[in-house]
């Protein structure tokens, strides 16, 4: 009720009323800036998924047999690493809300260590692929696979850089139970890369 009154009174500039409008629809985790980035990433990947579905419709046979040659264990390991790293960021946000800064730092560092397992796994997966004749010219299924998974890897790398920045700021005591928007913003971006991978994984390793 009070908030609505405040909203109605704030009509001077768009900038002035924007935070209240956002508040009207609920809490914004992290900050509004990160959500602009996240929505751009979601749109980008929806377009890439469109490429996947169109390629699949035109080359049914290649997509039926393609997953058989990929190393499922690599895809599963990446999923486990991302989900566990995401869990660590859930704990990091939980602990900073209780102002347990040392625990927060430990969770963020653990999230980074597990997250770094992704590019390492990807490196060995690609080496294994190439050794088995699966390169970018091995066929439409594998071209699409490299196109989407490497694109996702780029986004995960940005997320890792963000987590490293957050770890430094946490170590310097720059977050508290009252001010942890930056940490939460990095966490929600990191979880977004999880959500996208949860789509990519079945596309290339499970679906026929």
């Amino acid at each position: 009720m009070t908030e609505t009154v405040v909203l109605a009174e704030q009509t001077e500039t768009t900038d002035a009323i924007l935070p209240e409008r956002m508040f009207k629809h609920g809490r914004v985790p992290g900050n509004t800036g990160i959500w602009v980035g996240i929505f751009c990433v979601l749109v980008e990947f929806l377009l890439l998924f469109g490429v996947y579905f169109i390629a699949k419709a035109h080359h049914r046979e290649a997509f039926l047999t393609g997953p058989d040659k990929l190393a499922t264990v690599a895809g599963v390991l990446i999923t486990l690493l991302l989900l566990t790293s995401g869990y660590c960021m859930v704990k990091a946000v939980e602990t900073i809300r209780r102002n347990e800064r040392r625990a927060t730092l430990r969770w963020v560092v653990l999230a980074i260590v597990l997250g770094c397992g992704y590019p390492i796994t990807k490196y060995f997966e690609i080496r294994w692929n190439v050794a088995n004749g699966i390169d970018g010219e091995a066929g439409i299924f594998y071209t699409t696979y490299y196109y989407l998974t490497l694109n996702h890897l780029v986004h995960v790398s940005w997320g890792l850089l963000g987590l490293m920045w957050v770890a430094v700021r946490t170590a310097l005591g720059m977050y508290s139970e009252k001010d942890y928007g930056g940490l939460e913003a990095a966490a929600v971006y990191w979880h977004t890369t999880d959500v996208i991978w949860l789509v990519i994984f079945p596309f290339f390793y499970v679906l026929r």
Partner: protein
Amino acid sequence: MKKISPPRSQEQLAAPHSGAQGARGGPSHLGHAEKIWLLLIALTLAAAWLAETGKSSWLLAFVVAGLIAFKGRMVIDHYMEMTSANSRIRRVLYIFVSIVPLLVLISHGWSDVLKRITTIN
């Protein structure tokens, strides 16, 4: 006048899924985040089994579509805490994890239609 839900208190945010007791003071059983993590891990391992044994079928398409939607919702609701966050942001994320499973089913069942409408003559 539309009712506005107040933001959650600092205490509620500190223990988002632990009830009044809070995350620290609770009993030693698994917390909410741990249960969600275990569920996601179990579903991933089930998907791994499917990857090794699954053949192209409506059943596989439905299971994969369901897994994408369910796991996506789990991460959005429990990792990102969207159930108590901005409704507009939540809606966009829900749409994302609903559209993709729908496309999986369309792609499986109506592949020829998709091929026809995306062919440039």
